[in-house]
């Protein structure tokens, strides 16, 4: 996970520029500079940086049953379904990493069939309405499903991101995972906000 150092604001010189232009430059520069924190010691990562890191880390706490792993290739694809909110962040964070000796690769998919060989699949909020079909298409495929979609874990998803006390946390649906042939480590479960053991309730 990368950390960002805080940057101090640039003060514009006041000598050779006219007062109105000076102000304009000031505001432009201000907008161009990414948001900073006055307390330089506390670097803050963006929401999707954290989530991307979490996607990677989820993969380290999951065991694929032989049946579930049978469809997978020699790499460890972490995929994004639908509209990609991560962008280049995902690739940056995942580059060079490996899980269980398999090289981690970032992938974008738009069809359930393409996602069958994914190990971890982040389903974008854009797919909210198609969720049921997507999940059905992934049935027994051994794919760890993660999403921000509301009530994702109650709707048959495995891990749902939640925000608690300004922190990105997650809920886990153990049954969904078990049905897909995935074993989630107790270490993971103990840091989950909630662990559900319910059947897919549908939409």
């Amino acid at each position, binding site marked *: 996970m990368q950390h960002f150092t805080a940057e101090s604001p640039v003060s514009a010189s006041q000598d050779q520029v006219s007062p109105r232009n000076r102000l304009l430059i000031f505001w432009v520069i201000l907008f161009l500079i990414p948001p900073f924190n006055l307390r330089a010691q506390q670097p803050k990562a963006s929401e999707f940086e*954290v989530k991307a890191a979490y996607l990677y880390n989820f993969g380290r*706490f999951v065991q694929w049953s032989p049946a579930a792993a049978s469809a997978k290739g020699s790499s460890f694809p972490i995929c994004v379904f639908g509209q990609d909110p991560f962008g280049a962040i995902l690739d940056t964070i995942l580059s060079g990493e490996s899980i269980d000796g398999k090289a981690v690769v970032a992938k974008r998919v738009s069809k359930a069939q393409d996602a069958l060989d994914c190990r971890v699949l982040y389903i974008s909020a854009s797919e909210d309405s198609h969720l049921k079909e997507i999940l059905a298409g992934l049935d027994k495929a051994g794919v760890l499903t993660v999403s921000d979609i509301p009530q994702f874990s109650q709707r048959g998803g495995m891990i749902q991101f939640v925000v608690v006390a300004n*922190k990105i946390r997650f809920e886990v649906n153990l049954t969904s995972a078990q049905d897909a042939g995935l074993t989630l480590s107790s*270490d993971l479960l103990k840091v989950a906000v909630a662990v559900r053991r319910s059947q897919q309730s549908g939409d």
Partner: protein
Amino acid sequence: MLVSGAALLLACAAFIGYDLVSFRRAAVYNLSIQAQIAGSNAVSAILFDDPSSAEKTLSALQASPNIVSAGILTLDGRPFAAYSRNKDGKIPVLPSLAAGQDETYRFGGGAVLLVRSIVFQGKPTGTIYIQSSMEGLYARLKLYAGISAIVLAVSLLVALLISPIVQREVARPIVQLAEIAQLISRDKNYSVRAEPSNTHDEISVLVDAFNSMLTQIQERDGALRRARDELEQKVHERTSELTRANLLLTQEVAEHKRTEEALETANKELDAFSYSVSHDLRAPLRGIDGFSQALLEDYGDKLDSVGQDHLQRVRLAAQRMSTLIDDLLKLSRVTRSEMHREQLDLSAVVKAIAEELQHGAPSRNVTFVITEGLMADGDPRLLRVAIENLLGNSWKYTSAHSCARIEFGIDQSNGRPAYFIRDDGAGFDPRYSERLFGAFQRLHAMNEFPGTGIGLATVQRIIRKHGGEIWAEGEVEKGATFYFTL
């Protein structure tokens, strides 16, 4: 005392030191394991930013009463979660981990601080530290040191107290014994004894044994002295005896020499005398014999038988006297002549003489048994004479028997080899053996066996001249054996 005290101290120090080292090592090992466990349990908490979960993990360290504080830091060194026993929340200054180092620890301030890198699936994920108090150990070590000191002091005290007793009961008697032993070996006074101990222990046994040994030594010494004195006296006696004997011997030798010289002179005189006498006696004899013969030849027919017989008798007597003189001459010649020693074959000489004798009386039946090849070292002429006499005697004294046996050989039975001539003739009475070799001594009457009695005396002279001895054995009518050495 000092040495044993120092040794004891050293031993205690070694034990305590070892205890310290091993306990420290055990503490670190223990801590390391706890850090690993806690660290691996907190991994997900770190990865998913859940400090409360990490704190829960750390709080399990409460179970270890020695653990003062513990904490987890993120990869970039920020405090993530902490635990402290007395809830003061102070984070100690941590020693940094060098590159490639998983773990390090530091002892200080009565505690040990262990820092360990948390590694999950091969990737460093954070850092955990645990601080454990060493108060318990140090308290125990202090206790040990205290106990050792007390034990040391007590034992030294006891040693101090016991020392004089030991000295008195054990060391002193032994030292005394040693002194006495030295005294004895220096002065050689074996009447000294050690003071017997009244206790019935090993020391008294030693003292008693020492004393009895001394008694034995004393006795032996006395016996040795007596023996030595006796020996000295004996030696003295023997020496004086020897000196006396020596003196006597010297005297005897001197006398002997004188006698020999006298004998020598006497012999020489005698020889000269006999020689001249024989010569002088010969002349008249020749006259007697010659004229008697002439008388017989010229006027024999004028005499009657008695007269003739008388004349024959005169002749015989003269001839006999002549033979006697011849023998005497021979005898004196023997002693006067010089001796030339050479190797000769005695057997050949004997054989030759035997043949002569046989030739002289062929009718006699005599068997000669002559051992071949017997060599001797001597004067051939003289030895011939001797053999002639001996064989002649044997020949003569066996003439009474119809058949005879004369032997010549060498007899080894008495150690010294002796030649012998043996016959089975008339023999002689051994009681008169001393007279055998005397001049003019005859053991037989003239009518039994003729002879002058000079022969054996001559042989004896010859043998003696060769430095040998001659002796005879014999029995009446059973023969005689004459032995001689050269």
